[in-house]
């Protein structure tokens, strides 16, 4: 045993306390990354196609970004430190770039090495990311009886969308496509899923109506020419029959 006043004892005691400090510092920092979630500061995010239950999704994601790399329209981003739980966990911001299924075979699902994106999904119709909702019917061009001419989102919008009659294999910038419709139905005509959305008569108005086939990909939210968007995706919402 070293005597308590010996320099070696003191040095070793200092080292021990330093080490405790290091431990608390590292653990504290990592636990602090959970705070925004506990405090519910972070809104839920739209996850890539095939994402399993949020808790399991966060548990299983290894944060490699392979889903980001395979996406042909680069819709997927990895969450940042200020974006709450899951630094490095993928999400989609549909308004700036929706998942338009340009890849046909849900590439991100195939790329996922941990099963965070469920491999049970084999085609786009099986995807359930959320559901579209008409958030602001009062500003919908169709309801107002208006048509639409020009670039859906203006000249500075960088999002991509596949236009099959122009290029089957490569999605083109949304700004490169000029619309000219008498009654705006952009959300309906660009929807990649058959039977997910249609323009219907509602109380004497025309309004897009969402059906059970909707997968929540967000193309309607991206293409909506109204600012702020009329149609939004509710993340992870599932269809309830009325």
């Amino acid at each position: 045993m070293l005597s308590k006043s010996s320099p070696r004892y003191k040095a070793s005691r200092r080292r021990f306390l330093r080490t405790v400090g290091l431990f608390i510092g590292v653990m504290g920092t990592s636990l602090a990354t959970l705070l925004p979630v506990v405090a519910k500061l972070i809104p839920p995010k739209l996850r890539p196609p095939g994402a399993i239950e949020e808790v399991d999704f966060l548990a299983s994601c290894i944060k490699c970004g392979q889903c980001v790399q395979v996406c042909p329209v680069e819709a997927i981003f990895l969450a940042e430190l200020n974006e709450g739980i899951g630094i490095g966990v993928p999400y989609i911001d549909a308004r700036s770039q929706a998942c338009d299924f340009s890849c046909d075979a849900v590439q991100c699902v195939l790329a996922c090495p941990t099963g965070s994106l469920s491999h049970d999904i084999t085609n786009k119709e099986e995807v359930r990311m959320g559901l579209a909702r008409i958030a602001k019917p009062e500003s919908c061009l169709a309801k107002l009886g208006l048509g639409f001419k020009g670039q859906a989102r203006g000249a500075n919008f960088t999002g991509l969308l596949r236009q099959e009659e122009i290029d089957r294999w490569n999605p083109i910038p949304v700004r490169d496509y000029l619309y000219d419709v008498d009654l705006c139905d952009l959300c309906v005509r660009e929807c990649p899923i058959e039977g997910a959305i249609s323009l219907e008569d509602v109380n004497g108005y025309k309004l897009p109506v969402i059906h059970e086939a909707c997968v929540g990909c967000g193309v309607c939210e991206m293409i909506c020419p109204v600012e702020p968007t009329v149609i939004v995706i509710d993340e992870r919402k599932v269809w309830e029959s009325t």
Partner: protein
Amino acid sequence: MKGNLEALLVMFGKTPKKPKQIAQPAQVIHLQKRTEKITKQQIEEIRQELRDVEAGKYSKKWRNRRWISIIVINLMFTLSFWIDIQLFEGSIIASRVLGFHMADLYSALQVVLAYKVMFINLIIGTVTVFIIWILLGGRAFCSWVCPYHLLADIAEKIHLKLAAKKWVTNHEFHRGVRPVFFIVFSILAFVLSYSLFNSINPVGMISRALIYGPGIAIVWLLFLFLFEIFYSRRAWCRYVCPMGLTYGLTGALSPLQITYNLSACQHETACHIVCEVPHVLECVKKGRAGNIEVDIGTDCTLCGACVDVCPTSSLRFEFKGLSHIS
């Protein structure tokens, strides 16, 4: 074998001790060296050597090779995404390299503990990586692949420059805290169902920043960088990183190692000055080697700095069972 019990205990934080038994041939050499007269000129030469090493004047052959390796591998990831050559998809944490699944061992363990499901691609990925690093020396991952290593190398260089001018001092921690981090982060992954470690893992952060562009995570990297310059030399690699510990455990089974030869060694311990994990080099101290040839323990990152610095070639790379490399 580099993964003997003593080497594992030293990796877990034990202070290395002189071996209880010293083999007869080694005893003969130890005795010979004790009785040998050292001339003044020899002493001056050794002093000069130590001064040069401290000033950073020594061969950088292995360091240059190592840096090229780190840069090329990480650049492949970045370029695969940027120009879409698709050879190295993903990041250091998990990827497909030429189509082969790969997953970092500790990150995969975190995911399995959190998710409580073993996914087939992840099993393939971890087994592949496990086999690769058994063949290539375990913690060689740290020195030859890990992008944080390069950052830490630069921080260490600056730290040593400042320390030589007495502007900073190195504050050591107890190395035993690293296995504690390993265990606590593993338990937390299981309890929280979330791989907490990956929230602060600078290896994943720097890899993602290089590929997908930097974000706010850079602040944490910058903090670690400054911490290692001004407070504690190589702190993350030495005292925290559970990834490094996992590769150390993997390397316990590896035939690739640094081998020490007692015969020509002058015991000036220049290698201790440059080593990232000097506790593995206990055997080079005078009278400590238990044999003429000693396998350097599994916490060694095979960076080759000691090989670069040794004037008598007493330290060298070896692939056990094959002829010597280099």
